[in-house]
């Protein structure tokens, strides 16, 4: 299992970091092979958004209910997401296409800043999981008043 570290997009430093990021993501996307040599891409894909007060981690999980998911926050900024996508109950028949995948999945993500683990909320709407993680007070941006004399 990969632990994903978020690198801010617009960091002054990150020209090089971004390149490594791109490479890592490319490899991530290509996935790795399991013991039987089967293709196993990273699932689910995750987007990270932020505003002044919160991080919003979003993943597309169609057909997954909240009770099929385990979400944990540990060590200030580690978010772990575990769950199962159940095989749908379909009457017997001939399968012409099988493009969707099922089974267990797990990911660990490192958020760029500490979060307040007690106030994390998760919702699923139309198959999209959103986890809202309030930034820890120390990590919030502060507006500095500039005084003119």
């Amino acid at each position, binding site marked *: 299992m990969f632990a994903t570290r978020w690198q801010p997009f617009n960091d002054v430093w990150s020209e090089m970091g971004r390149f490594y990021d791109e490479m890592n993501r490319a490899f991530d996307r290509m996935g790795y092979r399991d013991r039987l040599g089967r293709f196993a891409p990273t699932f689910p894909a995750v987007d990270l958004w932020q*505003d002044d007060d919160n991080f919003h981690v979003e993943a597309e999980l169609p057909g997954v209910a909240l009770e099929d998911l385990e979400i944990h926050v540990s060590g200030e900024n580690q978010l772990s997401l575990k769950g199962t996508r159940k095989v749908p109950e379909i*009457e017997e028949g001939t*399968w012409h296409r099988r493009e969707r995948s099922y089974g267990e999945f797990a990911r660990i993500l490192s958020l760029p800043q500490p979060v307040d683990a007690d106030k994390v909320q998760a919702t699923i709407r139309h198959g999209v999981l959103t986890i809202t993680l309030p930034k820890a007070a120390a990590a919030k941006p502060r507006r500095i008043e500039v005084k003119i004399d």
Partner: protein
Amino acid sequence: MSQLVEKKCEENLCTAETTRNGATYTPRFDIVENDDGLVLLGDMPGVAPEDLEVRFENEHLIVHGKVAPRHEGRELVFGEYGVGDYYREFRVSEAVDADKIAAELKSGVLTLRLPKAEAIKPKRIEVKSD
């Protein structure tokens, strides 16, 4: 066996150009055929039932889902997938009863049932013996 021929797509996109800016994705589908008809299951996360359009005309089944923006006023820190509309078209050469096609969208999964026309349903012939 029925033949479901997918329209050839380039770079995973198979829709006419839109007038609106934004990406369009090809949703993944499972398709099962049984004696009653075809069952199609498609992943369309983020689509509300009122934003989904399903049409069947000239043997073509067209599925188009619109996705409303969900992150206004937020900044993307890191992205592994894009958000956009869904579009997919199947040619269904099997004779289906177009009036009885049923669609259900639940937690981002679209279930389409295309019942076969009565005329082509397999019929079991009773064998009599005396």
